[in-house]
């Protein structure tokens, strides 16, 4: 077992970056994620590992610094919270278009606008569905513990380089700020320049040797035909990612009649709600997406064969619920329960929302059964009357 440490979620991200051989972090302060930049500047890894840590003049500058570093084949990352991620979206679109392996962390706070500094999950749309311009996808990882915050940094870089695609860790202010036990991994040394060139020489900018053509990092095509081709290539890549990188977790789904769908902090709250519900004899379960792209569409679709209804629980006005509905495709009722603007729901109010859904579904089923029975009785009576007439 590795070294155990009690850490804040944000600190876990910073420590993971140092330990997984990250080459550069570019940040800008914004609550509730400033500890990432603070921790890294305090630890000051540059003299020891050579990892660059730099406070940029804006979120926009930070994401463009990431563009520059990752276009050199280096492991570069940035982090921010919702309003800052809005500012980064232009750069993220360029990074996706130029196919660069960057890591972005979004520790979500309530919005819209300046919103609040408290936790929220109202960035599902802007993090999972694009956010910036153009047809692109990020690989999105949704941690629900400080341990996962830590683990997903290294996993994020692995996936980013595997597919030459930006990866986003979609966290929230609760996971960023809370303290939990973390099992640390051993230090992985940063790659040397020679190793970076060997690994990324076919595309990255390292300085052009005589032996190859110049490498160009761009997202521009002035002609539509090659740009359509490039889009075809991107879509094929996203399909491959969907086929190979889906991660999700089932919780008490074996006999579940009613299923929560929740990620991040909400999934922790649903766990407790399930526990409370099961004590009352309710057969509750949960599907927790760990990757939000790719999304566990098929597992939810499969679960819809057995389950009677789904409740999507999010700290938002209902964003991910759209994907649950698409997966269930009208076969079962799908409802949303959420608190937002920085509010976190309590497990008992989540359970209450589920009980309301159960009551609604059961009432409908009962009505349907009554209607069926009535019809049957009427038919029987008609038949009897006919017989009597004869």
């Amino acid at each position, binding site marked *: 077992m590795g070294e155990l440490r009690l850490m804040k979620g944000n600190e876990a991200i910073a420590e993971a970056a140092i330990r997984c051989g990250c*080459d*550069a972090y*570019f940040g800008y302060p914004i609550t509730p994620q400033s500890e990432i930049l603070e921790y890294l500047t305090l630890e000051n890894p540059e003299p020891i590992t050579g990892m*660059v840590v*730099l406070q*940029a*003049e*804006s979120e*926009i*500058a*930070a994401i*463009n*610094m*990431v*563009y*520059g*570093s*990752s*276009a*050199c084949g*280096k492991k*570069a990352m940035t982090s921010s919270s919702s309003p800052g991620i809005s500012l980064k979206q*232009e*750069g993220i679109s*360029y990074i996706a278009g*130029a196919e660069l392996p960057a890591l972005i962390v979004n520790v979500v706070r309530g919005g819209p606008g300046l919103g609040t500094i408290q936790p929220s999950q109202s960035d599902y749309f802007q993090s999972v569905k694009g956010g910036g311009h153009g047809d692109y996808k990020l690989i999105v990882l949704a941690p629900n513990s400080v341990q996962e915050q830590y683990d997903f940094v290294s996993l994020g870089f692995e996936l980013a380089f595997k597919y030459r695609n930006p990866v986003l860790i979609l966290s929230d202010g609760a996971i960023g700020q809370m303290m939990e036990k973390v099992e640390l991994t051993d230090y992985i040394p940063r790659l040397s*320049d020679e190793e970076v060139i060997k690994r990324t020489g076919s595309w990255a*900018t*390292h*300085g*052009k*040797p*005589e032996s190859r053509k*110049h*490498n*160009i*990092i*761009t*997202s*521009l095509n*002035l002609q539509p035909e090659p740009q359509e081709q490039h889009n075809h290539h991107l879509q094929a890549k996203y399909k491959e990612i969907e086929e190979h990188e889906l991660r999700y977790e089932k919780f008490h789904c074996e006999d579940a009649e009613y299923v929560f769908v929740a990620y991040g902090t909400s999934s922790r709250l649903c766990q407790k709600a399930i526990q409370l519900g099961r004590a009352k004899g309710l057969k509750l379960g949960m599907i927790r997406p760990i990757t939000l792209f790719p999304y566990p569409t098929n597992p939810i679709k499969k679960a819809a064969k057995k389950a009677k209804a789904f409740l999507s629980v999010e700290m938002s006005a209902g964003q991910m619920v759209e994907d649950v509905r698409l997966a269930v495709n009208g076969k079962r009722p799908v409802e949303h329960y959420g608190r937002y603007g920085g509010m976190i729901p309590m497990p008992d109010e989540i359970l209450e929302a589920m009980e309301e859904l159960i009551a609604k579904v059961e009432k409908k089923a009962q009505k349907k059964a009554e209607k069926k029975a009535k019809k049957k009785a009427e038919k029987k009576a008609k038949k009897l009357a006919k017989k009597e007439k004869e």
Partner: protein
Amino acid sequence: MITIEDIIKEENKVFSKTKLLTDKTFSYCPGCGHGVAHRIIMEVIEEMGINEQTIGVAPVGCSVLAYDFMDVDMQQAAHGRAPAVATGISRVFPEKYVFTYQGDGDLAAIGTAETIHACSRAENIVIFFINNGIYGMTGGQMAPTTLVGMKTSTSPHGRDLHNMGFPIKITEMVAQLDGVQFVTRQSVHTPSAVRKTKKAVKKAFENIKNKKGVSFIEIVSNCNSGWKMTPVKSNEWMEENMFPVYPLGDIKG
């Protein structure tokens, strides 16, 4: 009779294109200064023998395709963000020669913050700033460096001081920052101007070698298409109107 074959001989050669310019035809309008500026920069990189260590950053604007012509590793940056992108390159490859090549809209409007802060941080890079007082690529709109009274497609009656304010002398602003080692304003419209600019470019890349921080080279240039003039007339107009507002010469270092 002397044939063409008699003339094309090594000993008669007076000029050859640097190998660091590709054979791709420039997308620039005939008479535009971009081509000359490209050539000077690439010549210096070749002469210094640093091409295998050089990474350039192209902007958004007429020179967005600079990477098609410059035969070194290149990145294309979002509009105005070239100094941030160059920071990202230079920080992970501190031994490399990193430069940005930007126009006035890119550097002095949308990218003002990135310009000022990269300069302030003393990033070890060269910034080339091509100032022709207009947004050329998008069809000749008003730029931050458009002169007062100058007509563009978005100041069709001339830049009005009361409505549109003053042109920005960003080169003078940058010269005040401690992180900047060398600031100069040059042009490329005459042979002597080309020689002076080339000298400045060489000094700038030597500053990178000696880790001296930012070198900032403004090249006041023409945009004959955007200004709706012949190339010759545009160069005359530049001397008469641009140079009094943007005087040539070294400003710092």
